[in-house]
């Protein structure tokens, strides 16, 4: 599990992993409705993370705990 932060960028959601100073745009988010938001996040760097679905946050950025599904190859 890792702490991550999701913020709204100009083009879409941006994923940020403070521990590794890694910033990447989110290509797809599994659930994106008002009461269920989250699930698997696919990043443009090839990595993917999982966040427990929550109600859609009223304001971004938000810090969450995420599980790494597949890391981007270095």
């Amino acid at each position, binding site marked *: 599990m890792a702490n991550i*932060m999701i913020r709204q960028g100009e083009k879409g959601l941006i994923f940020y992993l*403070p521990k590794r100073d*890694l*910033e990447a745009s989110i290509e797809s988010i599994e659930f994106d409705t008002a009461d269920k938001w989250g699930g698997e996040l696919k990043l443009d*760097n090839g990595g993917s993370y999982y966040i427990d679905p929550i109600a859609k946050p009223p304001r971004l950025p938000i*810090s969450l705990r995420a599980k790494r599904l597949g890391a981007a190859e270095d």
Partner: protein
Amino acid sequence: MTTLSREETDALIAEVLEVYPEKAKKDRTKHLASNDVTIEQSKKCITSNRKSLPGVMTIRGCAYAGSKGVVWGPIKDMIHISHGPVGCGQYSRAGRRNYYVGTTGVDTFGTMNFTSDFQEKDIVFGGDKKLAKLIEEVEQLFPLHKGISVQSECPIGLIGDDIESVSKKASAALGKPVVPVRCEGFRGVSQSLGHHIANDAIRDWVLDKRDGQAFESTPYDVAIIGDYNIGGDAWATRILLEEMGLRVVAQWSGDGTIAEMMNTPKVKLNLLHCYRSMNYISRHMEEKYGIPYMEYNFFGPTKIVESCRKIAAFFDDTVKEKTEAMIARYQVMMDAIIAKYKPRLQGKKVMLYVGGLRPRHVIGAYEDLGMEVIGTGYEFAHNDDYDRTIKEMGDATLLYDDVTGFELEEFVKRLKPDMVGSGIKEKYIFQKMGIPLRQMHSWDYSGPYHGYDGFAIFARDMDIALSNPTFKNLVPPWKKVAEEEVKKAA
């Protein structure tokens, strides 16, 4: 020297790396690339923020340098204790020229060095008592200080001193913030982690201390984040923002105070100049206080105009009008400067190798003067820095991350730029090779370079460096004669 094609650039990289052993070559190849403007993501062409290869001459600093030297050091009304042996603080003292207003030693302490001067017995028995005593003495000698930060040097982490508990006790006794910063030099791969640690320390120990207190705010409150007032940069920036009708509440951290930092959560917009060293705190404020941050660039008229309009777009029409009026007023001055210097500098080639931000920020300023940046690289950048750089640089130009002394020298020999912009460690190598160098870490003891006033100085400095007659006289007369004879004979 003509611009290289992609194949030539790649060949050059391969040729320079030829001397390394197999393993080192494999590692270094990842850090060198020819720029491809079509790539969106830098990680496809360049690797960054990795441990330097043992045995090469890297130009990086340490986490302590990132925290004490960059982020905390310029906060003028605090006393920054270099906790550990005397050297780290003393040899970096006042080297960065973070200008400030105040009476040094009375109410401001920017250029002074405070250290606990660790001896063998402190390593053996621990230095906590010494630190407590030091803080007491500091309070006695400099009662007007507004707070203390304890900047750990390597031994503190190695011997496991508990500076947090000392700081908490001292803070309660003094009634002033005492901030322990765990920025031991061995942490991380470069000074970049030091920035992060320093930002986190500000977040935990400083930022929220005035939450809930009354503050007279205006809709035009902004904070300058990541401007260290090198040679007066933040001042040159501040006058422009004030002319735009904005109110600058805080300067982080050049000529800044701890009170300003505590007031920053009340602003409407954070203006982020040095993205690399202060994006962490900006991200935190965006999340916790809902203050958006905006990256801007105040090097060179093109970028200034672009940035000012971008900033003004965030505010109402009065700001926009004032901004346009300001741009129009300064445009006359800028045109005169460009008319004066462009003919002298047109077509000159520059190679840059500085910290985590400047290479990409100054490209615009060089282009305004008709100069071309043919190679660029960072000491401690991360992927997101290269993402932003790729778009600024020309296609097939050279990119080098954490370049080694040998590589940089070889690249300069082959590419033959008219000027190099790098640090003091590179200055004399290249000047002896006959290439002018501007020390771009602290503007070669000149500056400011930010803002319109700064651009005038920037243009003049580049002209001074390039037109210096010294470089034509590097070959002594007797060798010149011999050269001519050889030519005649040939």
